[in-house]
């Protein structure tokens, strides 16, 4: 039976009492007609909580100012007291002026430029990247508890990095270190496993994701422990310290390389901000709103793996930043990813700068890994979210 048979059999026998007028043109739904009279007038949105360009700039520039202040304050902490006037002078010299004038023999500027500043800058980039990866994973998995550490992505990256470190693949090939690339491969593997698990059942639950994350973490950790136990004890000790998440001893060229990796990842994430908004509605709905879901998913996963891989290879496993920061920013600022992504980046960077400052100065002159700090702050918040926000988290 062809379509036409249905048509002739049924439709024309229909006693259609009130046949509606058929659409005459493509602009059937001209919802804008009532405002066409004031076509010149810029009708301002009446919804105060919705994102506009000016609100975006206000939030982002305010956050940038606070970030700079935090940066300077964090530089002030350390075993040697350096007056803030000196810090500001050195920072200004680095940013705007010729910094040779500051004098190479001056010990305070050496401490600032080669010890404190690289470390605080590294903390900023690591914290910001982790928070933005958290935002992206949460949107993609539609799960506010997704975090690169909680769901095992960081462990995957760590395994990749551990293999590179212990078997000497980490020795740089040319000028490019193989370490971040191995970590990237590990993170990608973990992400793909996680994604297959979360998509295996339609309408997967939050618990499935968390349980799978716990098990994935356990498996990767077991591999890492196996590797460290068969490794040379000196290397193994360095491994342990690194696994707990430390930000010690970066130099400027290393930081420069990190920034290249992060830059690529952040651009890949940032350009999908609007698609991430639509993906929070579910993949089917996103598709019906014009999102090429598969393409966006691939791109965001690659970016998340790249960022996690780069961050873990430089600083080890630092947990919960990608969980707390996006949640807080959503609560206070906006759930719109065009603002959520940059704000989470800035706030996450600030958070880790402060956490690391505490980690390196609280027990001065010794210090403890910053991963300990973030776990001690983030773990309880995670548990609190899990118990009090079940309805909001879509778990009920």
């Amino acid at each position: 039976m062809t379509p036409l048979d249905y048509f002739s059999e049924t439709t024309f026998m229909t006693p259609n009492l009130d046949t509606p007028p058929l659409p005459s043109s493509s602009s059937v739904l001209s919802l804008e007609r009532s405002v066409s009279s004031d076509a010149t007038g810029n009708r301002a949105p009446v919804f105060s909580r919705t994102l506009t360009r000016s609100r975006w700039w206000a939030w982002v520039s305010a956050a940038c100012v606070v970030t700079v202040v935090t940066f300077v304050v964090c530089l002030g902490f350390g075993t040697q007291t350096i007056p803030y006037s000196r810090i500001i002078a050195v920072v200004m010299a680095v940013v705007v002026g010729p910094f040779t004038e500051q004098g190479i023999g001056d010990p305070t500027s050496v401490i600032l430029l080669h010890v404190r500043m690289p470390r605080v800058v590294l903390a900023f980039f690591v914290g910001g990247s982790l928070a933005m990866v958290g935002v992206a994973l949460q949107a993609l998995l539609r799960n506010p508890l997704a975090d690169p550490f909680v769901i095992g992505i960081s462990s995957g990256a760590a395994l990749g990095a551990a293999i590179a470190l212990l078997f000497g693949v980490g020795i740089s090939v040319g000028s490019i270190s193989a370490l971040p690339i191995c970590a990237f491969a590990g993170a990608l593997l973990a992400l793909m496993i996680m994604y297959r698990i979360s998509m295996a059942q339609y309408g997967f639950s939050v618990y499935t994701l968390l349980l799978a994350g716990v098990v994935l973490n356990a498996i990767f950790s077991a591999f890492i422990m196996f590797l460290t136990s068969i490794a040379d004890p000196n290397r193994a000790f360095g491994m342990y310290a690194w696994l707990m998440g430390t930000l010690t001893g970066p130099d400027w060229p290393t930081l420069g390389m990190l920034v290249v990796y992060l830059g690529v990842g952040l651009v890949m994430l940032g350009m999908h901000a609007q698609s991430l908004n639509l993906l929070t509605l579910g993949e089917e709905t996103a598709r019906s709103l014009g999102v090429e879901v598969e393409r966006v998913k691939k791109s965001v996963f690659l970016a998340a793996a790249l960022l996690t891989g780069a961050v873990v290879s430089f600083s080890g496993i630092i947990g919960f930043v990608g969980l707390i920061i996006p949640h807080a920013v959503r609560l206070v600022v906006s759930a719109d990813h065009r603002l959520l992504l940059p704000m989470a980046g800035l706030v996450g960077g600030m958070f880790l700068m402060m956490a690391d400052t505490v980690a390196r100065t609280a027990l001065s002159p010794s210090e403890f890994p910053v991963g300990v700090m973030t776990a001690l702050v983030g773990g309880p918040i995670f548990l609190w979210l899990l118990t009090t926000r079940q309805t909001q988290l879509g778990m009920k």
Partner: protein
Amino acid sequence: MMNDEFTSNVAYSLQDVSFSYSRGKHAGSEAVLKELSCLMLSGRVLGILGPNGSGKSTLLKLLARVYQPQQGTIEILGESLSGLSQIEVAKRVALVPQETLQVFPFTIAEMVLMGRSPHHQGWGGWHWEDSQDWAIVQNAMEELDVAHLGDRLVTEVSGGERQRAVIARALVQEPQILLLDEPTAFLDLHHQLDIARIIRRLNRERGLTVILVSHDLNLASQYCDHVMLLNKGRIAAMGSPHMVIQPKVLEAVYGCSVLVDRHPQSGLPRVSLPM
């Protein structure tokens, strides 16, 4: 006898459409839709009815190109559906899904605004809404009586209010065809009537083509120009409510006896279950 006037009045034309969710070796055996062929007229309200698992929602998703059929062709407004990009489809068709995920704290206005995104191409969809977008959003929200809820969170409003907001989101896509999956499923009587009247008004006043999936035979009988009855992935009957909603047809499809009388106001068929 197909002529131009004919084809211009066709919203969808399906030819031998088959679809299965499972890929690979078992694909053929578990088809949800089997060799479906039909025409859906534009400017009408079409109700897709059928028992659980008959493929109603799946058919709707194929029409929105959420999924693509493994076999057969679908034409939308004279164009091949598979030949259009996702964004071009989204400018022609809007889908109101059965359930709206509400994990993140978006406001109602933000959610409605997302319906404008098919109209903004560019750098990965990054754009700022202009005053025209806002005007369209504002009008759609007023039309569906959710403008006062603009700053409330999606998680805070009632089911009926959320459903109206989702319909507003579909309208700001400025589609020619509106697809609704069980639009009244989780609503009480008052809100059911509300949504049904809105759907009819959009069709009558704007000439919007509406295709809705429903379990509610009476609602379909009262508000649809045509109904399609699906059974096990095939069309069991298609035509006016008078033709399709008959005891013999329904008994054959649903496998239980039903009573059909007339609605006291409209005279349209009304279904009741026997004692």
